[in-house]
């Protein structure tokens, strides 16, 4: 019994806390993906690369002497602007097409390849480190966690809560949810749908940028960092239900726990494979995911 408790305390719990922190940051990426899909029917395959650009933006801005705090504020804004450009030049012209889900998926895939290669041209293939703004270690009942990781958790959870408040408790959110259900009805009330789409896209991409900044001191930044994270974020969005905000958050926390706990018993690379197997299982049993789409009850 004693052994079991100390096992829980010193092996299982720290692993779960670590997974919780990564899960919260992953939820930010998944939130953007799921909101963009819920409103525009667009699967943004460049989302992982916007996350990557967020990391590089942090690296560059810190290098310019702006400091971590400047980067934390500015990088998500910059990535939001990149997202705006992508929406304006690429997505919008394709939206009227009947097969828009497919063509925008292809388009964002092409953009993803271009962005990844551009990152290699600009920053090289080497891994770059971003220094954490503080180095301390906090102890929570004899469990030691780097203070920065707790900070990442706090910021991620705040961003999730702000998003939730925005979508479910403000007028903007009401318009957003209504647009997800019936855009032409919303448009006939005189609400500019274009701006709703634009806002969603910029906001979603900004969240990916924020996640990129937050995780850059933990994982460092490299050109392909977006790809693996995107596949994971997709597993999250699929399990949670495409277009579901609550689903994305819960699934992100759930899948990272699965991965974190499983990697205690099996090699980490296999734990990652296990996550995809969970995804396939959910697809078989409940193809629409665990939760409802944005705007639906």
């Amino acid at each position, binding site marked *: 019994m004693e052994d079991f408790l100390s096992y829980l305390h010193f092996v299982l719990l720290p692993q779960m806390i670590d997974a919780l922190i990564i899960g919260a940051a992953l939820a930010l990426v998944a939130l953007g993906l799921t909101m963009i*899909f819920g409103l525009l029917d667009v*699967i943004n395959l460049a989302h992982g690369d916007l996350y990557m650009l967020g990391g590089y933006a942090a690296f560059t801005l810190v290098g310019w002497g702006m400091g971590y705090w400047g980067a934390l504020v500015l990088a998500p804004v910059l990535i939001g602007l990149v997202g705006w450009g992508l929406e304006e030049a*690429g997505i919008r*012209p*394709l939206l009227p097409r009947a097969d828009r*889900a*497919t*063509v925008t*998926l*292809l*388009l964002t*895939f*092409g*953009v*993803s*390849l*271009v*962005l*990844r*290669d*551009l990152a290699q*041209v600009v920053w090289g293939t080497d891994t770059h480190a971003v220094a954490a703004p503080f180095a301390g270690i906090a102890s929570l009942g004899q469990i030691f966690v780097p203070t920065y990781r707790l900070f990442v958790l706090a910021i991620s959870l705040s961003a999730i809560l702000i998003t939730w408040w925005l979508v479910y408790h403000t007028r903007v959110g009401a318009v957003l949810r209504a647009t997800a259900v019936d855009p032409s009805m919303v448009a006939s009330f005189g609400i500019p749908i274009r701006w709703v789409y634009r806002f969603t896209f910029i906001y979603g991409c900004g969240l990916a940028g924020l996640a990129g900044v937050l995780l850059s001191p933990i994982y460092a930044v490299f050109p392909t960092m977006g*790809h693996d994270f995107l*596949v994971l974020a*997709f*597993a999250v969005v*699929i399990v949670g239900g*495409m277009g579901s905000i609550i689903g994305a958050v819960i699934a992100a926390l759930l899948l990272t726990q699965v991965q974190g706990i499983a990697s205690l018993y099996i*090699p980490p*690379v*296999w734990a*990652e*494979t296990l996550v*995809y*197997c969970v*995804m*396939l299982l959910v*697809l*078989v049993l409940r*193809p629409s995911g665990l939760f409802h789409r944005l705007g639906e009850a």
Partner: protein
Amino acid sequence: MPHLRRVGLAMLAIAAVFPWLGGAFFTRLGIEALLLGTVALSVDILLGYAGLLSLGQAAYFGLSAYVSALLYVHVTQSFWVVWIAVIAVVGIFSVALGAVAIRAKGVYFALITFGAAEILSKIAHNTRAIGGSDGLIGIPIPRIPLLPGVSLDLNSNLVFYYFVLATLVLIYLGTRRVLGTPFGSVLRAIRDNADRVPYLGYHPFWYKLFAYVLAAQIAAFGGLIYPLLRGFVAPHLFGFEVSTKAVVVSLVGGIGTLLGPLVGSVIITFLESVIGSYTDRHLFVLGTIFVVFVMFLPDGLLGLARRLTRDRKLAA
């Protein structure tokens, strides 16, 4: 479409004399283009006829390459036995995955196929017994017995090239034949309006599943040959780069034409080789081509050619 036939015959004529124009390097590059063509053809059957976008067709290319490589190294040198084994393995896998993926509609299909290929790639990457990230090397090149006393020696580039070209032409003609039957018509009907087809008494699921398994077998044929060309297999064969390249070349050639993907894979393979000698930014080039075709030329080069000739006829 008489227009397509002319393009096809012209292509075939060029392909037939091609090895005599370039050297061994270009002959082998030609083989590679034709093998990529099998994956592109399978993408086109799904996207152009069944309306299913697969982002993981490399799963079957890679699966088949690994199965055949393992069999050649450990079990048998008989091409025909290996092919039958590949057909069986790919058949089982594609029925199982297809049944799951087709139940999920629209973009989910793309994501599931993408995810499944990722899983296979990761498994190949992480399993020491099949070479891990290094893959398998030293695959012997078998002789392929055709008739009693007649066999093909694939050590010769020319024999290899014409063997692949001939089989691809057969696969192309066979696929066109299959898609020209009422089965193909039902498939197109499902693509155009999946909600109405059940009211006509057809069950879309089985039609899509058959198309999926057929497409998997065609991509698997490419995977069956690939280890013999390169002498090794590696996890990247499952990877998203092969899958997406197959979609790009189909898009460039023209979706829903069957011939377009073959044209596209030849053009892109050679373009990449040329670009590769100037720069290693091939992802950038590939991505840009992708974006340009999606946005401005959604019906591909064949569609463009058709529009140009039609305009000229109208003007005359």
